[in-house]
C-alpha cells in the first residue's frame, strides 16, 4: 500500500477547482488545491471595492493595448474588462506568455479564485439540443452524456451558488432553481413587448445570473453597487472565495497552496495510474512533487491541456492520456462582438436607480428543428444586451460647450438599446494548441495556439447582426445600426478567445480512439485522472459555459469518490 501526501490533488482554484475542492473534501478526501497565482483573501484583498471613481488616478480608465501601464499586459488589455479598478485580477502576460499562430486572446486569472472573481456570472443550462448537436450534424464527436444525466447536477449547483432569473419553459433553455429575477428597465420592457409581439416564440428576459436577490447560506442579496469584478465582500455573486472554498475549508480537509505552477502530472506505467504532480514554486523556482490517489485538472482549458501535453512518458510520448492523439485539438470559443443598437423614442419620464450588474437575454431561436431552420449555417446563438439612458458621456459627442452644455448634461439623455450575439463555434481539428520549443521562466514549454473562425461562424455572424437589427426595428427602435468587430484581415476585434469561453482540447466522448475523457470526465487511458474545466467540452452550445463546468465537476467528483471507495481507480 502506497502512502500519499493527500487523497486528492486539484490543480487550480477557480470555478471548477473550487467546486472540486468542495465536493472532494465534503466526501471525506484530504485535498490539496494547487494554485499558480498569489493568494487572494475574501474581503481583505478586494482593494478597490466601493472606491469612488475620483480616487482612481485615471478614473477607472479602460486600459487598452498600447497605453502606458499595460506594458506587462499586452494580451489582457484586449478585453473591455481590463480596467484600472480590476487589473489586479488579470495575469501578467510577461510572466505567463504563449505564442499566437493567429490572433487568439487568452484572458487569464493568476490568483486563488482564478477568473471566478471576474467572471460574467451569466448561467444558462444546456439542453439536449446542445448535447445532441454533434451527433445530429456530424461536426465533432457525440457527447457521452445527455441532459437527463446532468439535470440533477445543475439543480444541485444552482441551489448552492444561488441563481436569479425568470422561468420561461423553453425546451432549448431549461429552467433551473431560481431566486426571484432582477427587474427590466423601461427601455428593455419596451423592446421586450415589441419583439415578442413581432416574433412569436422569441423571448426577451432578464439575464440568469449567479448573483443573489435573496440571502443564501450567510451570503447577502446583491446591494447593486455595480462593478462585481472588484470582488464582493457580501459574497453576493458566486466566486470560489465567497462560496466553494469556505465550504471546503469548513471540512478541515482542505490545503491550498498558492504560488505553485504545475509542471506535469506524475504517472506510473506499472499501475497505469497518476501518482501526483510536479510543481514549481513561482517565487523560488524550486520544484517539488506531491502525491495523491486521484488528480483533478481544473486549471482552465488551455492551462490544463498544457500540463497534459508536458506530461510525457514512454507510454504517453505525446502527452498524458493522449492515446487518441486528439489532446490539444478542437479548441473552441464563442464568437461575439456582433449585433445591433437602436434608439428608443420617448419614455423620458422613466429612469432607474441602483447599478444592476446584469442585462437582458434573448434565448436561441434559430435551428431548433422547426421551419425557422437556416440553410446557410448550423447551430445557433443567443443575445445579451440592455437598455439605458445616455449619460454625461454624450457631452463629448457633439457641438456645444459652456453653461448650456453643462445644463443639458444634468438630465439623462435618450434611451438606447444594444445587443450582442454569442454564437456557437464548431469543433474543428485545425484549431489546436501545441507545445512550442520556447519555455517560460519556469522551464515549461509555451503553448502555441492555432485558432480561426470557420465558414459556419462567419455565416452565422451575418445573421446575428441582421436579426438583431430586425428585432430592434420591429420593436420600434429608431436609428438602428449593426456592427461586427470581426476583422477578415486577421486583425483584432472579435478574434477567438475574446469571449473568454475557450473550450475543448481534451474532449469528452464515447470512443477512446477519438476523445480524451469519458462521460464522467475521467481519462479513458488513466482511470484516476479527471479533467473538469472547459478542456473537457466536445462542443460549445451558445450559452455561457461556467455552470455546465460546475455541474460536470460535481458529477465527476461523485463518480471519482464512488470508484475510490470501490477500490477500482
Amino acid at each position: 500500500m502506497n502512502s500519499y501526501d493527500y487523497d486528492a490533488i486539484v490543480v487550480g482554484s477557480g470555478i471548477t477547482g473550487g467546486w472540486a475542492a468542495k465536493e472532494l473534501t465534503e466526501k471525506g478526501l484530504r485535498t490539496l488545491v494547487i494554485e499558480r497565482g498569489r493568494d487572494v483573501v475574501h474581503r481583505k484583498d478586494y482593494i478597490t471595492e466601493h472606491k469612488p471613481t475620483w480616487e482612481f488616478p485615471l478614473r477607472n480608465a479602460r486600459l487598452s493595448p498600447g497605453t502606458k501601464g499595460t506594458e506587462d499586459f499586452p494580451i489582457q488589455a484586449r478585453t473591455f474588462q481590463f480596467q484600472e479598478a480590476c487589473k489586479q485580477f488579470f495575469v501578467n502576460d510577461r510572466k505567463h506568455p504563449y505564442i499566437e499562430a493567429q490572433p487568439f486572446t487568452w484572458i487569464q486569472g493568476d490568483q486563488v479564485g482564478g477568473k471566478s472573481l471576474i467572471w460574467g456570472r451569466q448561467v444558462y443550462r444546456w439542453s439536449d439540443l446542445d448535447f445532441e448537436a454533434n451527433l445530429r450534424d456530424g461536426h465533432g464527436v457525440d457527447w457521452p452524456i445527455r441532459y437527463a444525466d446532468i439535470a440533477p447536477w445543475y439543480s444541485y449547483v444552482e441551489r448552492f451558488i444561488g441563481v436569479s432569473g425568470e422561468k420561461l419553459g423553453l425546451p432549448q433553455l431549461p429552467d433551473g432553481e431560481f431566486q426571484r429575477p432582477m427587474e427590466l428597465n423601461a427601455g428593455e420592457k419596451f423592446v421586450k413587448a415589441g419583439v415578442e409581439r413581432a416574433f412569436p416564440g422569441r423571448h426577451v428576459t432578464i439575464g440568469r445570473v449567479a448573483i443573489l436577490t435573496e440571502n443564501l447560506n450567510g451570503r447577502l442579496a446583491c446591494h447593486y453597487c455595480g462593478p462585481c469584478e472588484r470582488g464582493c465582500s457580501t459574497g453576493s455573486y458566486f466566486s470560489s472565495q465567497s462560496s466553494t472554498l469556505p465550504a471546503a475549508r469548513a471540512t478541515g480537509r482542505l490545503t491550498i497552496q498558492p504560488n505553485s505552477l504545475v509542471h506535469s502530472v506524475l504517472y506510473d506505467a506499472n499501475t497505469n495510474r497518476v501518482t501526483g504532480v510536479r510543481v514549481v514554486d513561482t517565487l523560488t523556482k524550486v520544484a517539488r512533487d506531491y502525491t495523491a490517489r486521484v488528480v483533478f485538472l481544473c486549471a482552465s482549458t488551455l492551462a490544463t491541456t498544457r500540463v497534459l501535453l508536458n506530461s510525457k512518458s514512454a507510454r504517453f510520448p505525446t502527452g498524458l492520456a493522449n492515446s487518441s492523439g486528439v489532446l490539444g485539438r478542437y479548441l473552441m470559443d464563442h464568437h461575439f462582438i456582433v449585433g445591433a443598437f437602436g434608439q428608443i423614442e420617448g419614455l423620458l419620464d422613466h429612469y432607474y436607480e441602483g447599478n444592476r450588474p446584469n442585462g437582458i437575454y434573448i434565448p436561441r431561436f434559430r435551428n431548433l428543428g422547426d421551419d425557422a431552420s437556416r440553410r446557410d449555417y448550423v447551430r445557433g446563438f443567443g443575445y445579451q444586451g440592455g437598455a439605458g439612458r445616455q449619460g454625461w458621456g454624450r457631452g463629448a459627442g457633439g457641438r456645444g460647450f459652456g453653461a448650456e452644455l453643462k445644463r443639458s448634461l444634468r438630465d439623462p439623455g435618450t434611451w438606447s438599446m444594444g445587443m450582442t450575439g454569442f454564437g456557437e463555434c464548431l469543433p474543428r481539428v485545425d484549431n489546436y494548441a501545441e507545445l512550442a520549443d520556447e519555455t517560460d521562466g519556469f522551464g515549461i514549454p509555451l503553448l502555441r495556439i492555432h485558432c480561426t473562425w470557420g465558414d459556419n461562424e462567419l455565416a452565422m455572424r451575418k445573421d446575428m447582426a441582421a436579426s438583431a437589427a430586425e428585432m430592434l426595428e420591429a420593436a420600434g427602435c429608431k436609428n438602428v445600426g449593426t456592427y461586427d468587430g470581426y476583422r477578415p484581415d486577421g486583425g483584432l476585434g472579435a478574434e477567438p478567445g475574446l469571449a473568454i469561453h475557450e473550450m475543448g482540447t481534451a474532449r469528452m466522448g464515447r470512443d477512446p480512439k477519438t476523445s480524451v475523457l469519458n462521460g464522467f470526465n475521467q481519462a479513458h487511458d488513466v482511470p484516476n485522472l479527471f479533467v473538469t474545466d472547459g478542456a473537457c467540452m466536445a462542443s460549445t452550445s451558445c450559452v455561457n459555459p461556467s455552470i455546465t463546468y460546475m455541474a460536470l465537476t460535481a458529477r465527476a467528483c461523485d463518480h471519482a469518490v464512488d470508484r475510490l471507495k470501490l477500490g477500482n481507480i
Partner: protein
Amino acid sequence: HNEITRREALTRVAIVLGGAISAPTLAGALDVVTRGSWTVPEGWAPRTLSPSQLEQVAVLAEHIIPATDTPGARAAQVQVFVDTLLTDHYPVPERDRFLAGLADVDARTRARYGKTFLECTPDQQRALLTVMDEEAYPAEPRGAPPPEGWFFHRLKEVTVVGYYTSQIGATQELHVSPFGAYRGDIPYSTVGRAWA
C-alpha cells in the same frame, strides 16, 4: 439601418456589455458610506504640463464646463486629471499630439490677436473655442472628427470625463446612485438628475 463606425461600436459595446459580462465602465460605483474627499496633495506639481500649460488647460476646461450654481472644471481639478492622463496613460505620440494642440491654440490667438491664449480676454478665448468646436464637430458628415478637430474633440472628452468623475461633478452637479436596491422603472421626476 446603417453600419455604424467601428469607433462608435466599440464605445457602445463597452456599455452594452456592462450588463452582460462586467459592470458599468464609465463611472464606477460610489459608496456613500466610504466616500472620501480627495484633494490635490500639497506640493503637487504637474509632471508633463508646464505651469503655463496647466493653466491653459484649466482655462480651456472651465470654458467647456464653467462654474454655474455648482463649481466648474477648474474647481474639479480637471487640469490635474489631464496632467495625470498625459503622464501615466497616454502613449507618447498621443501625448505629443495633445501638447502640440495646446501650442496650436497659442499660435492661433497670436495670429488673430497678437498674444497668447492666456493673455486673451475671456470673450476672445470663447471666440476661438467656438471656431474649434465647429471644426471638431462638422455638421456633415457624422462620424470620426476631421484631423484638424482632433485636439478640441479630445480636450472636450477629457474635460467631460474629468469633471463628471470628480467628486464635485459626481456629487454636486449630478447624483450618485445609492446602494441597497435596484429599482428598474421609476418616474424620472422622483430623481430629477442624471446619475453620475
